[in-house]
């Protein structure tokens, strides 16, 4: 039961459209009612609602650098324990920080087994849900 509570807490609707990543593409069936005119106005050349591996890696490295890492050179192959020098407490803390960054939840099985930064990046890519977009002003 508690799991449901924490899940609903993490899916908070964004109350502002982030200026650089305004998106017209609906992300859920419910959102098809709210298709905005933004695509016409913002002239997007890239679908900003989906992350690329490079995005995720870059943001993850940024997050991980906020911890006391053994080396500043963090790559997909960097191992949390051997390369970054994390013990289990640091690893837990770092995983939660990544969860915060991407608003994903690492399931228990994965959290127990994850060894490298790359595995976390792949998990994020597989489970990332873009934030809900607000109604376009014209439609309200």
């Amino acid at each position: 039961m508690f799991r449901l509570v924490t899940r609903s807490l993490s899916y908070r609707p964004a109350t502002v459209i982030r200026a650089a990543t305004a998106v017209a593409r609906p992300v859920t069936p419910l959102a098809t009612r709210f298709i905005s005119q933004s695509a016409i106005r913002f002239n997007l050349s890239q679908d900003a609602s989906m992350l690329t591996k490079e995005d995720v890696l870059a943001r993850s490295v940024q997050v991980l650098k906020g911890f006391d890492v053994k080396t500043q050179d963090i790559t997909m192959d960097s191992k949390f324990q051997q390369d970054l020098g994390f013990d289990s407490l640091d690893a837990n803390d770092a995983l939660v920080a990544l969860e915060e960054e991407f608003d994903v939840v690492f399931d228990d099985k994965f959290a127990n087994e994850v060894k490298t930064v790359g595995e976390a990046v792949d998990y994020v890519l597989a489970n990332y849900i873009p934030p809900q977009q607000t109604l376009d002003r014209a439609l309200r």
Partner: protein
Amino acid sequence: MSRIIAIGTDLVFKPRFEAILLRTLIKQKINANNSSSSNQHILRFSSRILHPLQELPIFLKYYNGIQNFIVSPSAVASQGGFTNSAMIKMLSSLNANMDNEFVRSIEQMREDTNFKHCVSLLSTSWCLKEALYKVLDPNFQKSGFNFKDWYKINDLDTGKPILIGETYTSKHANEEFLISLSHDGDYVYSVVLRQKYNL
């Protein structure tokens, strides 16, 4: 007939948990007006470690009771940012810098009873469960073991701590875990002994 199978131990330096809590509280303070930033680090972190029914509600009660403290973003920036080691370094040299406003507010936070309860709950729980992890079978360690399946209570008569893991016990009814804890200032120490009865 009982047989001792394994013994495990763990030592925890409490300021590591203080640093995590302080870091997130400060971040929350700074991001208070930024609705797009997520402020659930502590909720997620504690949910990973603490049992959802027996430990987490108590923790959250104390966490929500933590008094607000004043911190200016520029003061934080000048203290070396949010890394745990920067925080721990600051925590260990607090008296030398007591004229600094930010440091004083951190010191005040550390004295807050709710904050102390939070640190205590997290560090004790972590310490016990790490020691417990070490006594379990390797294949259970890899898949099946979760911190949040276990909780500690104290015997109402003797006060002795008891470790309970309902799912595990239902599958291994002939096993028993004997535990002991010790606190000294910034340190918590635990030892767990796993024992099997031949039924």
